């Protein structure tokens, strides 16, 4: 079985890293990597070769690979180059995958989207969203702390006392929790909201304060946030108006799978914030939790920075690539039998069915 790793065009990550390639070789796979695919992840071609991979061209991969890996999906016009029956592992964003799926189906390939794995204990080792959200939450706070023209921690110095900064985290999923932990570490006062009841304990378990809004709908079975009623959102907004205008940093990490992200931070709220404050919106690719967010841009509104970056995991690209590669490895292990072929007994399996978006007829 030959695994091919493409160079990414819209992302810094790379699908496999040397350490994982070694493990794959041991299993019996051989790996070919597009030249300079690792450059943005700080991995040289030589590093890949040292790990046992071959460097080759993109065409080469399309021609030879039985399994192709690319963190971001291929451009639509490249799908037709895929070998019939080959396995294509990527990270199709859940709310756009349907159109792509049709094309892949037509091409007759297996396609798996690792971001659609269910949030169960057993699936966690293949769960790309978990890995990436965790990095994003961590980096969101660092980015914000770097941008904030203030200390986060309290300081009593001979040139005056400095109050600790307030950090407000919206959505205590994986990213939100990591953000809470990181902000706490830096000495900020941290508050968070979420609609899922159990997050209250989770927030507290990291030293954060939980702002409670009653009447939330609970999460779906798969553990993804549920869409909330208008009334609830209004209530929440009132409570949060105050919280947000008092915050120095707002981390937006509330998403609902497959739909637009809930808008929670409105323009008025932003306008009541202190000058110099920072909003990091990790939901920007789904419209953002902040009304003013623009995806992949940093907007400055009324002296408030609003960073729309759903791909902050790229800011820790070395770790992000490694984690992704491990996720891929674990996933391949899970879906393959000892012959490295796809197991046939998985038709009922939740992980398999929810991540598989195209099967060759």
């Amino acid at each position, binding site marked *: 079985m030959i695994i091919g790793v493409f160079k990414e065009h819209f992302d810094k990550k790379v699908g496999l890293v040397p350490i994982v390639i070694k493990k794959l070789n041991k299993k019996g796979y051989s790996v070919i990597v597009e030249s300079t695919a690792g450059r943005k992840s700080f991995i040289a071609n030589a590093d890949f070769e040292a790990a046992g991979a071959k460097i080759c061209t993109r065409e080469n991969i399309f021609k030879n690979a039985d399994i192709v890996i690319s963190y971001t999906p291929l451009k639509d016009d490249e799908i037709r180059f895929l070998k019939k029956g080959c396995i294509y592992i990527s990270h199709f964003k859940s709310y756009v995958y349907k159109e792509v799926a049709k094309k892949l189906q037509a091409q007759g390939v297996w396609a798996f989207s690792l971001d659609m794995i269910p949030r169960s*204990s057993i699936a966690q*080792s293949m769960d790309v969203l978990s890995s990436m959200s965790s990095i994003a939450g961590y980096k969101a706070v660092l980015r914000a702390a770097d941008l904030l023209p203030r200390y986060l921690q309290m300081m009593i110095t001979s040139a005056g006392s400095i109050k600790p900064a307030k950090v407000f985290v919206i959505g205590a999923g994986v990213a939100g929790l990591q953000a809470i932990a990181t902000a706490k*570490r830096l000495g900020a006062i941290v508050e968070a909201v979420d609609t899922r009841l159990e997050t209250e304990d*989770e927030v507290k*378990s990291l030293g954060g304060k939980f702002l409670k809004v009653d009447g939330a709908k609970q999460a779906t079975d798969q553990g993804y946030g549920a869409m909330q009623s208008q009334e609830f959102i209004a209530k929440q907004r009132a409570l949060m108006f105050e919280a947000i205008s008092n915050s120095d940093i707002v981390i937006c990490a509330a998403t609902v799978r497959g739909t637009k992200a809930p808008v929670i931070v409105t323009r008025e709220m932003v306008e009541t914030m202190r000058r110099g404050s920072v909003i990091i919106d990790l939901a920007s690719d789904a419209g953002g939790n902040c009304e003013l967010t623009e995806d992949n841009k940093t907007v400055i509104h009324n002296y408030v920075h609003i960073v729309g970056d759903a791909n902050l995991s790229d800011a820790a690209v070395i770790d992000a690539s490694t984690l992704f590669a491990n996720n891929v490895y674990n996933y391949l292990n899970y879906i393959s039998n000892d012959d490295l072929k796809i197991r046939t007994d998985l038709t009922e399996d939740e992980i398999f069915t929810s991540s598989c978006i195209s099967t060759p007829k």
Partner: protein
Amino acid sequence: MEQILDLLLFCASILLIIGLRKLSNPASASKGNLIAAVALGLGVLVSILYPVVTDDNNYLIIVIGISIGAIIGIISSHRVQMTKMPEMVSLLNGFGGLAAALVSLVWLINNDFSGETGQLVIVLLNLFLGFVAFLGSLIAYGKLSGKIQDKHLRISFSTLINITLLVVAISAMIFFSISGNLSITHLCVFIALSLLYGFIFVAPIGGADMPVVISLLNSLTGITAAISGIMTDNKLMLLGGVLVGSSGIILTLLMCKAMNRSLLSVIFGNFSSSKGGESSVDGDVKEINPSDLAIQLAYSSRVCIIPGYGMAVAQAQKTIKDLESVLESNDVEFKYAIHPVAGRMPGHMNVLLAEADISYDKLLDLEEANDYLASTDVAIVVGANDVVNPSALEDPTSKIYGMPILELSKTKSVVVLKRSMKPGYAGIQNPLFFKDNTKMLFGDAKESIELILRELKDL
């Protein structure tokens, strides 16, 4: 001669007290036990040499008796397993009770079943207590060893019967004593009454409370020894018996306190039912108390903490760090086994343990941990659940089958700290809790560890 023997007896009493004192301190307990043994040995010697009115003496029988007893005692005490000690103690106590009863019987026979009222009251009391201690201890033994199950011995109105019997026995005692002379029939009736009371006293008490009962019966045996001392005018018996009697009662109360119960509720509470409510719903788990865990930890070489989401909820990380310091100062190797999905976000445990300033070197990841756990004496699971669930390995129908877990099957002893038998995130029951080498310590993790710490400081 007599004077010297009297003084020897005096010395024996003093030694006995010194022995008991040393027994009550862990550092010197072993020595105390020896001293007490020497004291009693001295006492026995004196009792053999002491001039008596008649000089039948029967030395041969005495020597034979002592030899047989000593051999049985030594052999059986060396054979018994460490875990069966409480059974052994209750058996021994039963023997002591019977011996006291026999002393009374012999006294009665030697005195032709008659005597002053005061004497007779004392002798009958001794007989009564001796038989109660004897049968009671045997039943306790049976319950502890599992030979008798609580359900075999359900008695209705046990409290009522208990009190009635007691009143009857006391009345009989007084009545017979005043008469000044006992018929054999009377004696047999009285013995039967005593045995019956012994049965009614212990039978309804639940197996879990047996340690308390044994301590109480032990105190009774002490009192019989004291009475025997009065009967035979021997100060060592008197004082030794009184010491055992009084310390036994205090010990009983302390044990009740450690279990958070009152003595009355133990005796009359019939609480084999009230106990173990929540936990027994889900099968038979074994609980451990903080004090026993503390001693186990102090005397082990390798301890491993397995933190989970519950540690985060309880915010127990700093207390765990304290435990680490205390145990490390006791030369215990102390590590942390971090399961990759423990907690509710990647690195949850890392963040918290770093907050408590726990050195990175002590953190083991899954693979290292599974090696380590195979040679660990005690693994303490602090609010983790799914990540130590052996169904992931053993039960192909389980939701989490195939997930790598921290494997505790080879660990000598596992203690799980959680508040209830509720499942964790995955919502499934955990067979680990029912394994042979697993014990549960219910309660908030932080509070439990604080209790352990307190006990450790007592050691």
